[in-house]
């Protein structure tokens, strides 16, 4: 989605479908060190000890439920080591205070001081800009993220949508969001702001969510919404990057949308509205410029599916896409 993830050779199919499921434990684990979160690769790989050089990886002591600790204790000269997590967690009460070394002194105020660590950096990511052709006709789709700010506080402008060229109708998930992204965690950030739907029956929503990088390199975005029409909604997205080479990259992605009440203006039912699975294979001519081809399969459920049937459309849709990923 936003960056290049090295392929880590996880059983991809299973991992993709499980991605949303691991999100919650992943978050919990970031917040509290010893949380034993179940992840796809761990279920795929029985904990085993290999008495080789790699065997030392067994003693990583992080995110590794089910690992055999007894051997560590034995080889650690009987000493009990705190194998606490190397990531996340809270500072212990006796943690050092780095400012103590200053004895009250402050940094120089001369001109010319190195300020690059405070740069407010703009980035425009056109993650998907594509022409789509499928069983419901042709259209144009987009996913764009504009960010601007310092390391741990940014303005996010996020938009996604799909416009069908047959009837000029926008997909009901088409929207634009303005969010404040804030981070207190090395891999996760929180989102707070508003979402404005695009197209017929558009609603304005308050938005709150999290986004980040889950263990095993899953890129995750979860956002909850409160609409001005009283509806609640949620959108979840997860993606992964498989590096066939360092330039030929497959991005499988899953997205789902949930609504608390139906909206006939928007032609959305209540409950699970839809699930979309996609895979886009891009070639990075440069890091910033990558044409791609892909396939999208989407299915509507319950009320949303009924609305589609009323329009004489099927509940499921599939389309081939060809597009461009670019950023600067």
């Amino acid at each position: 989605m936003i960056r290049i993830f090295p392929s880590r050779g996880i059983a991809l199919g299973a991992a993709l479908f499980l991605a949303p499921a691991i999100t919650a434990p992943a978050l919990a684990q970031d917040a509290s060190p010893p949380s034993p979160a179940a992840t796809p690769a761990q279920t795929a790989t029985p904990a085993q000890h290999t008495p080789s050089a790699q065997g030392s990886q067994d003693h990583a002591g992080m995110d590794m439920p089910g690992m055999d600790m007894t051997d560590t204790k034995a080889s650690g000269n009987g000493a009990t080591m705190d194998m606490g997590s190397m990531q996340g967690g809270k500072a212990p009460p006796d943690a050092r205070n780095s400012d103590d070394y200053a004895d009250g002194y402050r940094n120089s105020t001369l001109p010319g001081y190195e300020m690059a660590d405070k740069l407010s950096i703009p980035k425009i990511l056109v993650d998907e800009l594509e022409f789509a052709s499928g069983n419901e006709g042709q259209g144009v789709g987009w996913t764009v993220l504009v960010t601007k700010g310092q390391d741990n506080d940014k303005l996010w402008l996020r938009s996604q949508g799909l416009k069908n060229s047959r009837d000029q109708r926008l997909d009901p998930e088409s929207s634009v969001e303005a969010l404040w992204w804030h981070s207190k965690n090395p891999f996760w950030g929180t989102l707070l702001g508003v979402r404005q739907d695009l197209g017929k029956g558009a609603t304005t929503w308050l938005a709150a969510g999290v986004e980040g990088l889950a263990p095993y390199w899953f890129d995750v975005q979860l956002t909850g919404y409160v609409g001005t029409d009283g509806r609640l909604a949620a959108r979840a997205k997860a993606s992964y990057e498989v590096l066939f080479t360092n330039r030929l990259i497959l991005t499988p992605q899953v997205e789902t949308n949930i609504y608390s009440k139906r909206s006939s203006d928007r032609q959305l039912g209540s409950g699970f509205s839809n699930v979309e699975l996609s895979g886009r294979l891009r070639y990075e001519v440069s890091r910033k410029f990558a044409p791609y081809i892909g396939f999208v399969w989407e299915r509507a459920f319950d009320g949303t599916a009924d609305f589609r049937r009323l329009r004489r459309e099927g509940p499921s849709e599939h389309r081939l896409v060809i597009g461009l990923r670019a950023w600067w």
Partner: protein
Amino acid sequence: MSPLHIRPIARRRFVQGLAIGGAVAGFAPALLARSAPVSPAELSGTEFDLEIAELPVNFTGKRRIATAVNGSVPAPVLRLREGDTVTLRVRNGLKEMSSIHWHGIIVPAEMDGVPGISFAGIAPGETFTYRFEVRQSGTYWYHAHTLAEQTGLYGAIIVEPKQVPTARAPDRDYCIVLSDWSDEPPLQIFLNLKKQSSYYNFAQPTAGDFLKDVGTMGLGKALERRRMWNSSRMNPTDYSDVSAATYTYLMNGAPPAGNWTGIAAPGERVRLRFVGAGTATFFDVRIPGVELTVVSTDGQPVEPVTVEEFRIGPGETYDVEFTMPEGGARTIFAQAIDRSGYARGTIAPAPGMAAAVPPLDARTWLEPVDMMGAMATMGAMGGDAHAGHGMTEMPARARHARTEYGANTDMRVDYPRTNLDDPGAGLRGRGWRVLTLADLRTPGGDPDPREPERDIELHLTGNMERFIWSLDGIKLNDSRPLHFKPNERLRVTFVNDTMMAHPMHLHGMWSDVEGPDGAFQVRKHTVVVQPAQRVSFRVTADAMGRWAFHCHLLYHMAAGMFREVVVA
């Protein structure tokens, strides 16, 4: 070889540059006349006029603007004499503020050349006069303390000792300045890294690598091998932030195709003064078939140690000596730590000669010890404990700062390794002798035998995903300075919580590195701390004023891995 070493992979040929790279013809027509590049001009005496100015160059086939001193990239070699008071008038002919820092030279604080700390920098068109007494001898260097370091503002300094040494002077004496050139402006490189930290890393593990591993070691072990990295969102190929994807590596300003050549006849004694002027590159240096005796590091003599290869980090210097063997030319080979490219030159009896250039090494992954520190060696290392042997006692636990539990720190090492006898990832199990920090010993013992009165523990921290670099999780502009009391002897202990090596440079005062036993070992000005390693050094705070203290990887410094030191 450890089983972690992966197979050689086909890789993109990096840009070897032009045979006559450097200043563009027309601006320096003399360059066209010569067959091989020569070392930059040498200036000597006590009075120097240096002009910083733009210089059109062409290292790669594309014309670009470099930052030169007196029309030269690298800047001229300055030959000083210990005991002299030197005057250096530096005129800034650029359109932006600039500066020169005398790296490793002990100078008064206001002469140290760090904008914002020593002085306000040199404004465009202005001249700043540096004046200081030279109180040391050896090989040092000078460079911009701004992003212009990347664009060519760096050069060697040789300080002749006041007393002529009793040992015979070498027959040949060359500076070898190793650097990294990019056609992209440094700010662009920095922004690219901030927006996508893996921007220049084209060696990330692929699905194909995984399938190969499944074929050779089976599915279980192939997954196991990846588990530590993937579960913690760490990349086992994080050697360098910037690679040959944009860099052309230079030796004395010559790209590999330019083949810088030094002359030495068989039997002659040769001294090469290596300067690590890479802004983001560690180099692994060897002259195949020649044993190198390291006689000095960071300008300070060491007990001679003979090796076949050594790693030099940005900021460091190493003097090595050898006797020129029979049999013609020899290649000086300096491959980048990430094996994406190399700098190369030749030492030969006559100009125009060349020897075979060795292939780049296969890329390897970082090893568990580079993430886990002592934890990795406490477990079952089998017989392959070259990275952590001697580890029989339980290592001391690191004391993390409370500021290491926020967004700026993606990992913390609780039990760092303390051994210094590790040549570092990519150089382990070489089959020939590679220099380690443990090999470097200053003769004559501790220059200040007082025991340190107190300890300052500082952790080298980062968030690789977001390209945030810091100390104790605090970036420069969120930090407060370190206060040293005048003339106190104190100990600074680094714990590297990241998976990259950081060359840490304290301005104004020496860094007297201790061995794992706490005894003084070697005097340095730039201390390389390997991943998940603890290194302590002693400081005598005998230099009043404000000083810079930072990682010498330029983009880490820019991102915040920098503290101010106040001696007051």
